[in-house]
């Protein structure tokens, strides 16, 4: 039987690096802290390389869509044209902080993202209505009622100030909502620690190692 020695070797490297960084976080020994810093520097460089690999993957996916004439290939062509244009501007017209690059950022990227934000607000209102329609339960009513109450009382209505309304809003947000959020966050923190440690000790390997 053929044994793949690469897999346990890579897993051991991943586990050892993770353990050194973790111990370096708790134990401030000079050598260990330096090693931790070095590993983190490498991680930053590798993340930058991964970003390039990711963009190449993005371009390949859209190129294939254009080549095979899949639905939405016009949008893929637009994406590819924008990518090429941006790369050309950054390379030949003064780098990422040049006036041309900033023009692209301010007059193309920002308006597009702002438009998506506008679509998102409409989508959220629609989703809210659909939720009530889909599941008419006591929990949904509490969720919807609280969200509406907090939204309405967040505005300053001219000539409309019911006694105690603002205090009630503060009480809901600072006592009930904050307590609930903290409870959820404690659970999430425990889950995140367990997941991280499982990966670190090699009990769970959601990668090919």
């Amino acid at each position, binding site marked *: 039987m053929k044994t793949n020695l690469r897999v346990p070797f890579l897993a051991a490297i991943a586990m050892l690096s993770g353990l050194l960084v973790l111990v370096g976080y708790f134990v401030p020994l000079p050598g260990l802290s330096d090693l931790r810093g070095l590993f983190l520097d490498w991680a930053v460089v590798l993340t930058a390389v991964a970003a390039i690999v990711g963009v190449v993957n993005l371009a390949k996916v859209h190129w294939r869509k254009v080549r095979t004439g899949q639905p939405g290939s016009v949008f893929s062509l637009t994406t590819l044209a924008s990518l090429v244009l941006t790369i050309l501007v950054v390379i030949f017209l003064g780098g990422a902080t040049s006036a041309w690059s900033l023009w692209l950022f301010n007059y193309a990227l920002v308006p597009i993202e702002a438009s998506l934000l506008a679509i998102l607000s409409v989508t959220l209102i629609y989703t809210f209505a659909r939720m009530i329609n889909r599941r008419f339960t006591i929990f949904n009513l509490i969720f919807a009622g609280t969200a509406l109450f907090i939204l309405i009382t967040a505005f300053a209505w001219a000539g409309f100030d019911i006694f105690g309304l603002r205090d009630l809003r503060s009480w809901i947000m600072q006592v009930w909502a904050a307590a609930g959020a903290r409870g959820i966050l404690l659970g999430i923190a425990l889950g995140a620690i367990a*997941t991280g440690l499982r990966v670190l000790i090699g009990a769970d390997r959601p990668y090919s190692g």
Partner: protein
Amino acid sequence: MNWLGLLFVFLFVALLLGLGATSRGVKRELREIPAFARLASGIGAAVEAGRRLHLSLGHGGILGQPGASTFMGLSILQRIARTASVSDMPPIATSGESVQAILSQDVFQSVYQTIGAESQFDPNSGQLTGLSPFSFAAGAMPVVFDQQVSLNVLAGSFGSEAALIADAAERAGSMTLAGSENLTAQAVFYASTEAPLIGEELFAAGAYLQAGASHNASLMTQDIFRWLLILVILAGAAARLVGVW
């Protein structure tokens, strides 16, 4: 030196390993979470109907708290890929961060290697759809619409932009199951999806998908530490009340 932190980590690991060793082969009763029941039936239904499964990992990267939900998403992807990779329409994963996209490709490759069908591996099955939250969502929406998806699983770190993906799934007539470590995303998922994972339920995915004894041990360890935290909070409140602290 942070001795308390180190002790916490040491105890956590010791319990994780100890409970993992003792609970091996022991079946543990888990409370029912509708999302996981729907996930199991949804995978089967997609394979039978020749439809695709779409898993979105969000845009949190692999560092910090968002990284933990990314790793959970990758574990779910591994389980989904193992079950559905033999289908005519293999699963597809979308990410909003490069390292996640590479890891999702790695998961697909290792699954195809495991089942002896490496030639079927397509690197484009793990896609980077955008590098900012909104571009990621905008890039994931065509996957939901055009790739004959019957089940969308959103498992990772998202923000409010996840509503756009969930809405696209609703309009495409596909089912969506979603979980995140982000509170904003959880609120959005509660309103927009049929089966949201609330709180730390996402981190229980491994145990529910029978990913191994370590996941069951992890759940038990979390429960033990949760009770310890509750006791510490109650003791702190009582001490404050009587003026000791």
